[in-house]
């Protein structure tokens, strides 16, 4: 397939630091290969900015193959851009037209403050994880092989699907309420579905939801936007599972 190039206009959020007031800036970028990824296009823009002695645009990225959850970006009004089930690094410039104006903004949420340009602080997710998103394992002496416990295929698959959440925050970014319920429910589900996770299930869900509320995320109104925009296609079923788990724990936990 022959490679094509397009010329695009970009409107990108620039913000010096966490305390400064940012604004949308306009850039023009020519000769963008349609085979390049969105992040490669931003690299190309940064090269152009550096060559003209301007400050390059800060954006998060790491593996660039859709598994690390580092890249973010609200592109043309959607988290990770117009494509479905992909992260921004997997989004290709062939999805855009020649001469198109592309809006690039950081995730917008009180719990995700902008650090610089397009980079947001997602450590709220880490703190939710630390509140209960783990299984306590006694590591002194003989530890048991996890695979020694038989687990049904259907349950194992569901747990694995929940575990594919990369914690990118697209759910929060897409949600009109900036709610983190899809993320938290995936983390609750991946453990609640497995026998190893059952032991601490009640306290886990209580503690993780408590931390989620404290971080200042909004409340779920079941619009379903999160599941549509999720690059890993985490299902709303997980939110229902979390609701069940929490209800059980709220009524029955010590």
């Amino acid at each position: 397939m022959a490679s094509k190039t397009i010329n695009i206009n970009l409107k990108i959020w620039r913000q010096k630091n966490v305390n400064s007031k940012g604004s949308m800036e306009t850039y023009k970028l020519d000769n963008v290969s349609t085979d390049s990824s969105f992040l490669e296009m931003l690299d190309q823009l940064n090269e152009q900015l550096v060559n003209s002695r301007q400050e390059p645009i800060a954006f998060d990225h790491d593996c660039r193959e859709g598994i690390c959850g580092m890249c973010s970006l609200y592109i043309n009004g959607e988290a990770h851009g117009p494509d479905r089930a992909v992260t921004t690094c997997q989004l290709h410039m062939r999805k855009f037209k020649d001469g198109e104006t592309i809006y690039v903004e950081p995730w917008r949420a009180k719990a995700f403050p902008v650090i610089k340009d397009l980079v947001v602080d997602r450590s709220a997710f880490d703190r939710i994880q630390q509140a209960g998103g783990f299984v306590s394992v006694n590591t002194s002496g003989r530890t048991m092989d996890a695979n020694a416990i038989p687990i049904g295929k259907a349950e194992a698959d569901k747990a694995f699907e929940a575990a594919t959440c990369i914690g990118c925050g697209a759910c929060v970014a897409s949600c009109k309420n900036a709610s983190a319920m899809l993320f938290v429910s995936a983390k609750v589900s991946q453990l609640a579905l497995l026998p190893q996770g059952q032991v601490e299930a009640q306290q886990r869900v209580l503690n993780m939801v408590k931390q989620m509320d404290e971080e200042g995320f909004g409340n779920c109104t079941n619009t379903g936007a999160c599941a549509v925009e999720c690059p890993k296609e985490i299902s709303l079923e997980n939110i229902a599972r979390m609701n069940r788990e929490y209800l059980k724990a709220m009524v029955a936990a010590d």
Partner: protein
Amino acid sequence: MSKSGIFTSSLAKKYWMALTGLFLITFLVGHLLGNLQLITKTGEEGRRAFNEYAYFMGHNIFIKILAYVTYFSILAHACIGLYLAVQNKKARPQNYAYNRPGTNSGAASRYMAILGTIILVFICTHMANFWYKQKVAETVPLHVLHKEITEEQQNPMTGQTIKQVIPIDYVLTTKGDYMPFAYVDPQSQQKMELMDVKEGTHLYDKKAELQVGEGYRDLHTVVMNFFGQSEQGQPTNEWALVAVILYVVSMFVLMFHLWHGFASSFQSLGLNHKKYNGIITFTGKAFAIVVPLLFAIIPVMIYLNR
């Protein structure tokens, strides 16, 4: 160890929204079945049926309990809902410069708070127009089934029994519960209190301790007058057309609220299962269309038959 927070945690608030929402959905069914009597039965029979029904609703102890649960549900649903809406707004202090929410979610689901607020305003006007009038403030005409009473008198000279039919052409209105009512004496043109109301709806002749008829508070006429039909010489509402239009618009708003709210309440309670999701969604959408539509037809038909 964390406190569960039956009122404070985000998930607990969702449960309250879902439970009160589901209760109000069942309330709608009951309310609709009652209202439909306004158009399914006509004439004096319809008037009687509706007023008897209204009397039952106001005096049955189980209905009274349900009524208080309904008031609580409306208040809780509205208060928690508005609180959540404010919290959700705060969770995103800065909006996107360019946003396309239509690509990932339905409009009804995104405007639940606004739709709900409109419905709350509707409920307030609705209760002021019917509930308040009937329960507290204004006097409501009494629906008297017997428009005349027969008095028997013995002629002392001849021993003959004279039957005298006295038309009741003046009916006192009631306030609160039933009050004694009177008629205008044809000779003296004086108002005379002739009757007592006992056992709720039974009218008794004061002198003879005889049951002479039944009386109901005439909510039927209140409704008919409000939506433009004139009965019993009561003045009709000159804003009837506006009332009908606003009522129908409110039902459209309710339709959108239910379009998302019905299935959403199941999800909030964790009732999401492949086997049942289809039927829940279908029932929810069918309910959202049929129930508000039937509600809306009633005032339209009353207005058109005026």
